[in-house]
């Protein structure tokens, strides 16, 4: 009768006992409040990094049509890598929102009977409205993608009577004419007011989010707190001023279409 005892050959090197593997330490990170918040922080930090890179790319509009159009072509030419980045970004975005909403619902149910008299001592407005500003940013991002990535919102009339989709505009070298697309996009007052409002929401969201991420990662301390707060404000101001500057430059006529 063969023995059921494992032979030496059946042992795998560096193996954990059952129930102690990767899942055993990743599951609590997804299920507990502290772990979920860590993930909201990680995804938030990654999204903030994206927003900063996105802004730096957009600011190329100030150095002329060739600069921004060649940057756009560089991104397009990444091909499959661009799609991996896009899906990665979408994944981070969805995870950030889903986890944040799940935590919010949880904390809402943690106080079934509200206070008759409610007072706030030191919590900032930004920290108490993260879900509101977050959902506003979500609505804006959907619009932004429909507007500049999918071209569903606006068509432009360059030669009178002929309307073309913004995304079909080409420059002299045959590249997508992002310079003209952006300028025509922001020439519409309704659209640009929406963009400026969204920058306001993003500013409030980042003013709490960036510094809060450090606290969540356990990287805050009385010594570093002033620097971390300053960094939070700096990122929020940079993103808000940088993005708004493009819209305002189009409004004031500083940036003009070539055609």
């Amino acid at each position: 009768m063969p023995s059921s005892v494992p032979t030496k050959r059946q042992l795998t090197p560096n193996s954990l006992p059952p129930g102690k593997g990767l899942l055993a330490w990743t599951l609590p990170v997804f299920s507990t409040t502290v772990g979920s918040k860590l993930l909201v922080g990680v995804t938030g930090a990654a999204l903030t990094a994206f927003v900063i890179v996105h802004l730096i790319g957009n600011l190329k509009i100030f150095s002329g049509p060739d600069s921004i159009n060649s940057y756009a072509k560089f991104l397009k030419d990444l091909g499959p890598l661009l799609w991996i980045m896009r899906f990665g970004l979408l994944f981070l975005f969805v995870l950030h929102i889903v986890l944040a909403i799940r935590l919010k619902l949880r904390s809402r149910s943690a106080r079934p009977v509200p206070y008759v008299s409610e007072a706030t001592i030191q919590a900032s407005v930004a920290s108490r409205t993260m879900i509101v500003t977050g959902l506003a940013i979500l609505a804006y991002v959907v619009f932004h993608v429909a507007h500049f990535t999918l071209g569903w919102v606006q068509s432009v009339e360059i030669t009178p009577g002929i309307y073309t989709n913004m995304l079909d505009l080409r420059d002299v070298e045959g590249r997508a004419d992002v310079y003209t697309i952006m300028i025509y996009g922001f020439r519409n007052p309704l659209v640009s007011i929406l963009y400026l409002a969204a920058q306001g929401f993003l500013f409030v969201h980042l003013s709490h989010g960036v510094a809060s991420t450090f606290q969540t990662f356990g990287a805050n301390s009385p010594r570093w707190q002033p620097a971390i707060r300053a960094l939070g404000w700096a990122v929020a101001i940079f993103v808000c001023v940088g993005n708004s500057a493009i819209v305002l430059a189009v409004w004031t006529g500083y940036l003009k279409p070539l055609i």
Partner: protein
Amino acid sequence: MKLFLHVWRQKDRTDPGRMETYNAEDISPDMSFLEMLDEVNEKLIQEGNEPIAFDHDCREGICGTCSLVINGMAHGPERGTTVCQLHMRKFQDGERIVIEPWRAKAFPVIRDLIVDRSSLDRIIQAGGFVSVNTGGAHDGNALPVPKPNAETAMDAAACIGCGACAAACKNASAMLFVAAKVSHLAHLPQGQPERSQRVKKMVEQHDQEGFGHCSNQYECEAACPKEISVKFITQLNRDYLRACVSAKD
């Protein structure tokens, strides 16, 4: 002093509860808040009414039993003070004062202003201890503790477990309580062997009790009668992250 009190009255756990109004007259500004409630209760008893039930024990600010939310602020408006050490001179004559119990799913109301805080005890039972062999007392200096660590551990250990952090938190999170208990032991050599298990188990129990999540608004720090710093929540987050990624278990 004359005061107009709006007090939460609730017969038992199942009663939905409601606010009721009482007039407190001839209140001395030197009375503590609880003494003022005693006066009101004396009058209610004389009139044949049910007195207002509220929790209290030492009345010297160290036991963590008193638990009132006054005008929306846990333990009232004075910083670093429990309700029993809050005096009526902090209020204006003729002021309208709203008195409520701690409000959280994990703190069910037993009666009027008294809540059941055994959820905090269960969090301690989950990991807020050190396992040691008992026996003869150790020599005092056998286990060196650096002075700054001893001070930090003591700052965290100042937590009296009243639950004001959860009461003040917009998300009803007791993270400052958990953080104080975790940090207290994390700064001492006796706390090291169970350090990573402790933080995981206490956070898990905290969540199971139905408390909300910490969203770094720091209302807890403002409400805490022992002025426990939110830097201990940073320590908790750091220890939790380390425990989760550690290869030990």
